[in-house]
């Protein structure tokens, strides 16, 4: 199975023709949040693709099912996410071709992704993503993360980007083992609402995906109710004329 590198001659640091490695991301997705719940995993992400500070693309699906047992959510460079989906598609097809009753579970996919991300990091040509991998196989729930430099770990709740700072504190307080589906969705929406208020690259159009032993379900895009009538928002420059 070979998939990952371009030819060695073009690899490495900048040559006369110009650099062919990732220097900075262009079209990016913001936070992804994932939690374990009673029957499986719930993952939420908005549908925004920012081009720098412009909220350019508003229908980007950042959560995708992988095989029968896993869900992958990604933040960071969208084109790199699409590359990863291509590699994973190849991996799953290759796995299915064996047709022998064995199948790659979330643990295996997570470790495969870790190897890919770490290898790219070692070549100074990273895939600029933070990935959230969740799934259920044979009753075992699995939720893990891989960063663009190959740092990987598992936990009961995961978040990327701004989610780490704004969502995880809420999850640490309010998440508990065997949380129900309804409570889980409410909890995710609470986190997404905070992100919507405070993360400037967030948009009010999100999807929540769920994976259980019986399969994957990705919701239709919907918006959260917001409230902007706080008195602190009225006359914001009252105390400091000229500021915004």
């Amino acid at each position, binding site marked *: 199975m070979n998939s990952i590198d371009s030819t060695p001659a073009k690899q490495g640091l900048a040559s006369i023709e110009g650099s062919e490695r990732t220097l900075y991301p262009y079209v990016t997705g913001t936070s992804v949040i994932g939690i374990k719940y009673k029957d499986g995993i719930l993952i939420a992400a908005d549908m925004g693709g920012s081009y720098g500070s412009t909220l350019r693309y508003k229908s980007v699906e950042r959560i995708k099912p992988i095989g029968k047992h896993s869900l992958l959510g990604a933040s960071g460079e969208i084109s790199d996410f699409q590359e990863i989906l291509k590699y994973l598609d190849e991996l799953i097809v290759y796995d299915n071709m*064996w047709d022998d009753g*064995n199948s790659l579970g979330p643990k295996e996919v997570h470790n495969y992704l870790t190897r890919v991300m770490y290898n790219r990091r070692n070549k100074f040509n990273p895939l600029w993503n933070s990935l959230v991998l969740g799934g259920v196989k044979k009753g075992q729930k699995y939720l893990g993360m891989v960063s663009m430099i190959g740092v990987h770990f598992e936990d009961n709740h995961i978040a990327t980007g701004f989610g780490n700072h704004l969502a995880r504190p809420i999850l640490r307080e309010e998440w508990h083992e065997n949380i129900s589906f309804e409570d889980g969705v409410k909890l995710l929406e609470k986190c997404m609402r905070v992100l919507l208020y405070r993360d400037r690259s967030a948009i009010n159009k999100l999807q929540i995906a769920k994976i259980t032993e019986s399969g994957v379900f990705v919701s239709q895009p919907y918006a959260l109710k917001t409230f902007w009538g706080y008195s602190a928002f009225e006359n914001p420059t009252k105390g400091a004329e000229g500021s915004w």
Partner: protein
Amino acid sequence: MFRNQYDTDVTTWSPAGRLFQVEYAMEAVKQGSAAIGLRSKTHVVLASVNKANSELSSHQKKIFKVDDHIGVAIAGLTADGRVLSRYLRSECINYSFTYESPLPVGRLVVQLADKAQVCTQRSWKRPYGVGLLVAGLDESGAHLYYNCPSGNYFEYQAFAIGSRSQAAKTYLERKFKTFMSSSREDLIKDALFAIKETLQGEKLTSSICTIAVLGVGEPFHIMDQKSIQELIESSEVKEDEPVADQGTAMQEDQSPEAAPMDI
């Protein structure tokens, strides 16, 4: 099997559609000392007869641990067996590294079979002269496979390869229906009895055989000599009873058979 003009190259077909070099390679397996394997739903046992060149030398290693959940027993050219075991170990550890998960036995066996097939279709290679009994545990339970030099592989409930393996096979054919639900201890005892059949009169001691066990919650390991000797001795005490049973069984069999012969 007689020498003929179609047997020099592995890439030459005979008019009857046979590849003689491949068949000769399978003959090499029959020359090696016996190896047997049997499995239940949760355990697999491999056993081999230790043959030494002379009294002065040590015996050749015929059972190899490939991973915690896979082991092989070989018969035939042990050098080829060693090299293939190294390949199997390499495949297992590479898969483990990438996926943090044990390689499913069924897939390893197919990879091994494909590797063997390559050697039957290149004029500059020869087939591997070794048969492998692959014992493995995966999500779907315990498995026993036989890989032969031709590149074929089969799954078995129980099997025996090597010299005088037919005697062991006869014993296993009698008892295999009970294996699926056998306990671990019964499986090992059956393995010992099967080995005994291949010895044809020679005394069964722990120095002449090697036993390895693999099961749910029990990683693949070769049993130590002391435990095997104890098992042999404990089954010898009971030997008088099974022999007596077989004696009466034989008499019963003879009575209906004797009737036609009377005429």
